């Protein structure tokens, strides 16, 4: 029953305006508080940035580095605010933490190469079989000039499940990229293009010294993110614009008819010549 409700909630989130995603999620949680945990982990939200005073670096917040109301930094492995009681907050085992440190290092380089800025964070956790990791990247861009605001935000959320059998790694990747661009001009008023796309992929890679899990995950994320970037470009700046042009015809139907007639005439004239 609960999973059916979650389906309704997720369907709703796929229809409500992405520009108001945080308010929509808050409203949804108010309606079905029993689904809170499920919703927080299933619904992607724009990533928030926090500052790690120990490591003097920014890191990203998500459900996977949260324990109660505290968040763990991937750089110092410490919780903010610190968790006094119990085990001090969930942290990966020593072996997993080593993988996590490596992953953060290489994705920091990846982020630099593709994003030339922004913030990245990777968090790992154990599964019954194998482990999982989430790779987060956030980049904002403000190109406002001469009174024309032009802002963009990119959020990558890549969740990968890793299982290893006899030197072969089996990787299941679910990637979401949230992209939001807004501008405002005197002529158009406010224009907001926001949303997200999600894709999944499952692959096997050999695992060895040259190709540890982190490198395999890196390759897979790079391929997936590059594909998503292309699709985002097609959908945002191609498809939605195409839909607008079916709603209103800028040129005018008479002009279109004229041009069609002309091109048919040219076509038959050429056909006659050959």
């Amino acid at each position, binding site marked *: 029953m609960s999973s059916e409700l979650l389906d*309704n*909630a997720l*369907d*709703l989130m*796929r*229809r*409500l*305006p*992405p*520009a108001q995603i945080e308010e*929509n999620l808050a409203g*949804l949680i*108010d*309606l*079905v*508080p029993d689904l809170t945990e499920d919703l927080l982990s299933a619904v992607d939200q724009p990533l928030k940035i926090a500052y790690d005073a120990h490591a003097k670096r920014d890191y990203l917040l998500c459900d996977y580095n949260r324990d109660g109301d505290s968040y763990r930094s991937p750089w110092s492995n410490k919780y903010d605010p610190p968790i006094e009681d119990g085990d001090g907050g969930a942290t990966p085992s020593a072996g997993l933490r080593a993988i996590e440190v490596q992953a953060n290092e*290489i994705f*920091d*380089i990846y982020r*630099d*190469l*593709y*994003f030339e800025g922004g913030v990245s964070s990777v968090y790992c956790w154990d599964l019954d079989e194998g482990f999982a990791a989430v790779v987060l990247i956030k980049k904002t861009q403000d*190109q406002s000039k001469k009174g024309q605001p032009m*802002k*963009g935000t990119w959020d990558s959320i890549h969740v990968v499940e890793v299982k290893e059998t006899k030197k072969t790694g089996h990787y299941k990747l679910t990637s979401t990229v949230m992209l939001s*661009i807004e*501008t405002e*001009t005197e*002529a*158009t*008023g*406010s*224009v907001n*293009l*926001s*949303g997200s*796309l*999600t894709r999944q992929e499952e692959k096997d890679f050999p695992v060895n010294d040259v190709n540890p899990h982190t*490198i395999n995950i*890196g390759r897979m994320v*790079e391929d997936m*993110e590059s594909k998503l*970037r292309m699709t*985002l470009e097609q*959908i*945002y*700046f191609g*498809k*939605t*614009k195409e*839909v*607008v042009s*079916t*709603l*209103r*015809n*800028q040129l*005018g*139907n008479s002009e279109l008819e004229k041009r069609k007639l002309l091109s048919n005439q040219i076509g038959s004239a050429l056909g006659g010549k050959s």
Partner: protein
Amino acid sequence: MGDISNEEMVNIANGFLLAAPPGEFMEVVTDVRALLPNESMLNATAHATFREYNTEQMIQVSSPGHKHQVLITKHGEVGENNYIDPKGKQVLVFDHIKQEVTSSRPIAGELEGDLEPVRAAFEQEAQRYADEHYAPNGTVTVYAKKEGGQNVIVVAISSSKFNPHNFWNGRWRALWTISFKPGGQANLQGSLKVNVHYYEDGNVQLNTQTTKNATVPAAADPAAFAREVLKAISKVETTFHQSLDTSYNTMGDTTFKALRRALPITKNKIEWGRIRTYRMGQEIGK
């Protein structure tokens, strides 16, 4: 962590309904009904919310017994669930819950007699404009009324395309109010709203809205007056549409590319076996 009141829940639910993308209202209703602790919680406010959504969206319906389509709008509301079809000279009864016309009757005094020659002239020019720029997916409806000592013509245009099979829907709404006193200036106020939703394995939405103003001399001859106004409307809308296309290009060429490169500056994908050398290279460069 207190529970919220039923009233607050209904407000949230109705807020969701009113935010439904074009063509997806019933899907949102289904989801929201299932998520409420009690389905019947929406009943008391259902009619009001459905009416608000349908009239705000300016739903297009077929005019019974006629070939044309007409819009369901607040400007055309002549009674509860009664909407005037000035072109077909009839009044439609519209069921907001089912979102369909249930019956119709001939007009009985709902048209503003004095203004009818002007309204008819505007209807003709507006139809010409809509045939040029909004066919085949758009509908135009023209109303006339007297308001606060002014004569008011309302030109409402709503154009929609639904393609749920391919996971997209869209609607363009233009609502122009022309206020004038005979022999004076006519003040034009336009509201333009465009919404597009794409949802295959995701949720992408374009939302844009703006208001525009213009003035046009109110010629005595209704046909000349209508022509001048529609010329002004056409100019404003063409500029808006042009600027929207330009914004698309700027967003795609500048901001998008500045967010994430297609490839690193090396012009090749990462050689993961040597990933750490990229960092070393940068440090040496420093």
